[in-house]
């Protein structure tokens, strides 16, 4: 089952990315690329020659594979398919795994010597550190007190604590998947980009691996978000997927990118929401 889950996520990840891009373009009055453009882009990149900066270390050469491996592991541990064995990967381990992926990506960026990549690495680590408490607390708040299993996410009753945890997690998604108002996937203006800046020096199959990994990560985050929403049975959670995608695209259309040093305020808001969520989850019984 878990293999089916991984294959499905891998196969659909570029489609989800394409769909969000298309809807966003339509909302902004542009025709936008076709739904399957992302697949064509990846195929094109695979056919191209890969160029790397002349001084890079083996770490950077290995980075695309490592990052893809992290993304696939993320997809594999999501609580969709019923698993036959006890999943050792809990919420804490997942958060630390994602941090490890960031560790490798940013080191690879610094290795290329490009100042733009260095700038992106600096910002990625900064916001990554600021987002980490929110990510952990929102997931813990959604899972309920003492529960750390990812599987618990889909079974906990929703209610106000769940809504707060979801709102906090939404901020995390915006940051982790490089969305407006924190980052902008569409921009190639060097001074503003974070995620794109990290990938600036990659090309060919290495860029394809990096881009594919970020598609998978994005879909995995979306699936975690729908797991937080209420549903009659675990499988029905996935029906929320279009809603969450639309919400993200809506935010991207309605809001402009924030100035860099205003982003911490947004992240702080998410953090406070996550604290409120977990507090209410634990004390819900005798506070409400």
């Amino acid at each position: 089952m878990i293999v089916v889950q991984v294959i499905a996520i891998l196969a659909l990840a570029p489609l989800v990315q394409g769909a969000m891009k298309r809807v966003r373009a339509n909302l902004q009055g542009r025709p936008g690329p076709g739904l399957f453009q992302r697949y064509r882009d990846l195929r094109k990149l695979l056919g191209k020659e890969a160029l790397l900066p002349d001084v890079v270390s083996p770490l950077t050469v290995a980075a695309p594979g490592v990052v893809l491996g992290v993304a696939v592991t993320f997809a594999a541990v999501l609580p969709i398919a019923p698993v036959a064995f006890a999943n050792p990967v809990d919420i804490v381990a997942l958060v630390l795994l994602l941090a490890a992926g960031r560790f490798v990506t940013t080191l690879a960026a610094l290795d290329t010597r490009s100042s733009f990549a260095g700038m992106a690495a600096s910002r990625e680590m900064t916001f990554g550190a600021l987002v980490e408490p929110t990510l952990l607390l929102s997931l813990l708040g959604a899972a309920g007190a003492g529960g750390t299993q990812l599987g618990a996410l889909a079974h906990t009753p929703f209610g106000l604590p769940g809504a707060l945890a979801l709102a906090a997690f939404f901020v995390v998604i915006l940051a982790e998947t490089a969305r407006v108002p924190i980052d902008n996937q569409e921009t190639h203006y060097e001074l503003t980009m974070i995620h794109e800046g990290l990938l600036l020096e990659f090309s060919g199959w290495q860029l394809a691996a990096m881009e594919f990994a970020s598609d998978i990560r994005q879909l995995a985050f979306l699936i975690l978000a729908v797991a937080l929403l209420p549903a009659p049975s675990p499988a029905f959670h996935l029906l929320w997927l279009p809603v969450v995608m639309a919400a993200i695209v809506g935010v991207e259309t309605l809001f402009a990118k924030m100035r860099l040093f205003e982003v911490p305020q947004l992240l702080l808001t998410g953090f406070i929401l996550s604290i409120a969520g977990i507090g209410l989850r634990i004390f819900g019984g005798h506070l409400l």
Partner: protein
Amino acid sequence: MILRLLGVGTTLAVAVVAAYLAVLAFALGPGMDCTFLVLSAPAPMLDILVGLDGFAAPFLALLALLSAVVALWNVQRGRPADSVLIAAFTAAMLLVLTARSVACFFLAWEAMSLISTFLIAAHHERRYVRRATFTYLAVAQSGALCILAALVLLAVQTGSPEFGTIAQRAAQLPLGLRTVVFGLALVGFGSKAGLMPLHFWLPRAHPVAPAGASALLSGAMLKVALFGLAITALQLAAPAPAGWGIALIAIGMLTALGGILYAVVDRDLKRLLAYSSVENVGIIVAALGVAIVGHALENPLVANLALTAALFAICNHAIFKALLFLCAGTIAESEGTSELERLGGLRRSLRWTTPLFFIGCASIAGVPAFNGFVSEWLLFRSLIALLAAGDDAVTWVAIAAIAALALTAGLAAACFVKVFGVAFLGAPRHSRPRPPEEFGPATAGVAILAALCVAVGLAPEVVAAPLALTARNAFGDSLAFARLLTSLPPLPITLALLPLLGGALSLALAARRADRRVPAWTCGSPVTPASQYTATAFSKPLRTIFAFVLLPGRSRRIETGGSTWFPSKIVYRTSNRYLIDEFARTLAGVTLVLARRSRAVQSGSLRLYLAYALAALVLAVAVAR
């Protein structure tokens, strides 16, 4: 030569003895201790007793490991005289860990403090080294007085100087008295371990010592201080109420956050490592606090889990911080500086140190498959278990601690991405070619530590099992904990398997395809070493966001020369203010002024001194009546 042989030989002997004692101590069951009278003093209160206690086992094992590695280091590096001092230093630490009476512990502690002072003063020809030594000595001696007061209070109140007896009788002492003892111990041991706000000596003193000594100071001596704090709270002044634990969690988390914030903006590699030690000590103390709270709430799961996490973090920090400090020594030797802005592209000249240092960075950043990940996971799990422990106030403390720990972990990752990225990756910031690094005994010693980082990271149960046993001896059995531990072994490999496989495939594919290498693209301008991102630039966003703690200041001077439009030179300076250090400096200044004033009573006249003696005698008789 003979001096070096003596130093290395003695250090190795200490390592062997410590390893042997560690094995014996691990074999001791709960409540068992063996104590030997070494020296019977005229007053029984001053008896010198040594012995073994199960709790000392992990610390002895660490001391054995680090002594052996530093002995290997000293075969090749460092001055011969330093290697002898290091041998004495390790012996003193061994004595602290095996001391079982008040007098013995205090004498060993003082020996450890004084010998480490000589190590810190190794390069005393420089003024800042002398200042650091003086600061260290002042803090160490003030701390030692607090420790002495705490131990003497316990000995007098229980009527025995022996640790075993004190631990048995401590429960009958009033809570107020025990809290005073705990507070004194917290100040005394905390100042030695680098707990904020008494940490200010540490980032000055640790970096100026020779590399081998820095590794022992950060890797072993901080752990000995934590050992003292732990046995005071868990044995000598036990049972610990939840309040102590909450105090430790609060102080520990603030120390961790403060330490890593100062580390992430620091520009000197060694000082950065020292601040990161402050952070790690904070995390360990917080874990100890969680264990105490768990025990006080009669929750054996939390208590066992948190103490195992604390001991695991102690082991991990000893291993990777010693590794990083030794590598920093290699860097300083080869480059002549440890300033990050002058380093760059070290991987080309330091071909052995680079992978070793990377392993250290990945471990400290908590990357799965390296050892730092395991203790971080255990500590998070203990805090999450504490959430459900039932006490309202404790739950909020746990939530705050989870948030603080997650932020600390994120900042630590940023910090070590900065260190490795700026110093080792990219291209050198100078054009002087360096001779390629050679593999020697010193490198072998560091490689042992790196191998342990990976081995413990991949097979955590090897270390977790004995540590869990030590925790169980302290807190009793917990079925839930035993069950939780079974989910630990498959965790690192589950997380790391696909990334490692992907990385290997990526490398293989790149090697087969032989893709072209081209200069990096920076909008058409040539890529010079100066255009690489610097450590200051990397930490700039964090410096801005946490300006309310770091209080950064900057000045910019633009020299335009003859032209109105084109500046000939821009000088940009940035600095942080260290409020606690400023406060300490003020305090030191006031103390010195008072000391100078009190010189008035020292006239040098014999008759006056006799009058003092008489006055003291009269006073003593009056008080005694």
